[in-house]
């Protein structure tokens, strides 16, 4: 991943051709930009997020040139592009791969353009830019189509279905009833996708604790503190007590509830964590 590239080297006079460029940084329009950059570095990250890929960026650069400076020197587009890549590499490495491929393609096109061509060569076939032009054109069409689709009235955003039901319906409709197998297979699929579950701690954690956590929260939902002892049902036996205890600990860890004790003599009470209990870091996995 070297940011040094042939194209970078040959653009010392880039600033001289500065278009009257507009960029928005934190809502403010910039008309004047640093001499050495088209976009200030800290704005670039934000700026780049508005591009959907190398084609999008290239299209933008070309359109820009087109509007403002048709007489730009040859290497300009490639040069600018390379400059973006360089910055991207420092700021958002994970973005760079596809952009680099495009950069390579541009460099290749450029170099082929510089080579003398046989006089009798088939114009179309031999034009190294033809493929790129077509891709850019094709891409631009869909960019526009995407805007059309975005502007369609959408259910949930602009369109609200009217709904009403009868108060009661005599014969209860048969609702679908998946079996456990369906449920677990679905879970298996999520697991295959999300490594979030990989945590050993979670793996060992008995399910009944999770279930109990929900119960305890429900119990406390009246917002009134409950004595810790009241949460425990001794009829559940040893294991039940342990489960309940673990559930309470988990909830405290997750900053969902708070345990209080007025003094060492008084009983422990448990209440929902209030908005006042600021949590710096959610006890996330």
């Amino acid at each position, binding site marked *: 991943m070297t940011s040094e590239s042939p194209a970078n080297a040959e653009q010392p006079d880039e600033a001289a051709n500065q278009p009257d460029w507009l960029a928005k940084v934190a809502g403010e329009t910039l008309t004047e930009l640093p001499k050495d950059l088209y976009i200030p570095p800290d704005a670039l990250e934000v700026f780049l997020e508005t591009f959907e890929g190398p084609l999008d960026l290239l299209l933008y650069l070309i359109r820009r040139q087109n509007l403002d400076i048709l007489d730009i020197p040859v290497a300009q587009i490639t040069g600018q592009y390379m400059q973006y890549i360089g910055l991207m590499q420092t700021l958002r490495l994970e973005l760079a791969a596809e952009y680099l491929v495009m950069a390579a393609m541009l460099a290749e096109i450029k170099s082929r353009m510089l080579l003398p061509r046989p006089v009798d060569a088939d114009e179309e076939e031999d034009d190294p830019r033809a493929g790129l032009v077509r891709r850019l054109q094709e891409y631009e069409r869909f960019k526009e189509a995407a805007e059309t689709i975005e502007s369609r*009235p959408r259910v*949930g955003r*602009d369109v*609200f279905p009217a*709904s*009403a*039901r*009868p*108060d*009661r*319906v*005599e*014969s209860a*409709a*048969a*609702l*679908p009833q*998946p*079996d*456990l*197998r*369906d*449920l*677990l*297979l*679905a*879970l*298996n699929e*999520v*697991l*295959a*996708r*999300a490594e*979030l*579950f990989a945590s050993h701690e*979670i*793996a*060992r954690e*008995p*399910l*009944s604790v*999770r*279930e109990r*956590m*929900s*119960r305890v*929260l*429900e119990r*406390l*939902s009246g917002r009134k503190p409950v004595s810790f002892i009241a949460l425990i049902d001794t009829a559940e036996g040893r294991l039940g007590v342990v489960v309940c205890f673990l559930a309470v600990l988990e909830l405290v860890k*997750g*900053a*969902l509830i708070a345990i209080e004790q007025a003094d060492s003599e008084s009983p422990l009470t448990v209440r*929902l*964590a*209030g*908005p006042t*209990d600021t*949590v710096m870091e*959610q006890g996330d996995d």
Partner: protein
Amino acid sequence: MTDVAEQNDQPLVPTNEAELGRVVEALLLASDQPLSLDRLLAVFGDDAPQRSALREALVWLDKHHDESAMELVEVGNGWRLQVRQHYAPWVSRLWQEKPQKYSRALLETLAIIVYRQPITRGEIEEIRGVSLSQTIVRTLLERGWVREVGHREVPGRPALLGTTKQFLDDFSLKSLEQLPPLPEVKDLDALHQALEQLAPEAEAESAGDEEE
């Protein structure tokens, strides 16, 4: 579909009873819960009409639906437009018509709630990597398999979801304990074994064709 252009963030204040009535109608139709007077008023923000005007609009609305299949009723939580009982038989036939299958998305969501409860929507989305559709949560709530068990005390106070007794009943479980632990779920063979243990009679014959 005509005058969208003139609408922006701040909707116009309806000027007469009928127009206010229609706004209320729109709100009641779009909401799946009854709406209280306060809730209705809140929609108008600073330009809220008088309470009395709102009441009159409700009267207008009630009268206006004389000849439609809906009626306006006041229930505990406020006002609701509902289908007249007269038409319930047809509706019940519509609902009976096909017990659909639940989507994979719904089952995945349910499974995550089962294993990670209490959990917020955001956390479910994070695990699944997809935004959670409103419909899925609503279906799970309506089915009584899931309910809100509290709120996480972070900005926005997102609701925490957990499973219910009803869930256990409907899936013939005595307790969640009966479900295989996660490591087994991750291992497809172990999962199948666990499943067979759960219901040896039922699963025996369908053991071959679980993938769809």
